[in-house]
């Protein structure tokens, strides 16, 4: 499930183009992004606040079980990393 400041329409077009099947959520005011302390102030188009890249694996009880906060936005979590973490979930 992916979250960004993009409007739902932008996410819809992107999802269709790329063929992604998982959920894309819009946080245009960056409220949830702020609640998770992931604001990258002024980094978006026209100085807009956007999310810094981050991945969280949350178990069915709502507890965070794995976090990846990259230090370089070209370096993102690879599927293997989180699949390994997901295997530990019951």
């Amino acid at each position: 499930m992916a979250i960004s400041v993009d409007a739902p329409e932008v996410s819809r077009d992107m999802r269709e183009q790329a063929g992604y099947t998982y959920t894309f959520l819009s946080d245009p005011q960056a409220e949830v992004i702020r609640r998770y302390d992931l604001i990258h102030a002024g980094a978006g188009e026209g100085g807009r606040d956007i999310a810094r890249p981050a991945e969280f694996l949350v178990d069915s009880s709502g507890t965070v079980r794995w976090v990846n906060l990259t230090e370089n936005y070209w370096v993102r979590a690879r599927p293997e990393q989180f699949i390994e973490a997901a295997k530990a979930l019951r």
Partner: protein
Amino acid sequence: MKTRSFNWPVWAGLLLSVFAFVSYFFVFVRFPVTRDFPWASLLLFGAAAALLLVGLRRAFAPERRLRSKVAGSVAATLGVAIFGLFIFSTFVMARWLPAAQGAPEVGQKAPEFSLTDSDGRPVTLSELRSTPVNGKPPKGVLLVFYRGYW
């Protein structure tokens, strides 16, 4: 006269450094292997540097005219500048990220939220955690925060 011939290595070197720069953002960035550490781009820059060096040596051969020396120097300088810009954007600028010290840590509860999905429907985290997938309750949810496409 052979000595007045077109100094192709210097121009090929400049073109290759432009290609090395552009290809990272349009091609190599799509594959984690060439994106996480840009070794393919660095190899291309290495080849460009070799061509530029060969070209510079040719340009500064005694029998060459001043024009050739100036053109060779300009091309080599541009090549180095493009390389510098590449290193800056991939190794320096890309690290200008906030530390996110207040982000939820392992063992903490993920803050609940309600957001709109790409079809305009409201979705909550607790819904995502409990809605069956392929007839089975989900083991968990992966939250991916990304910069967006604006």
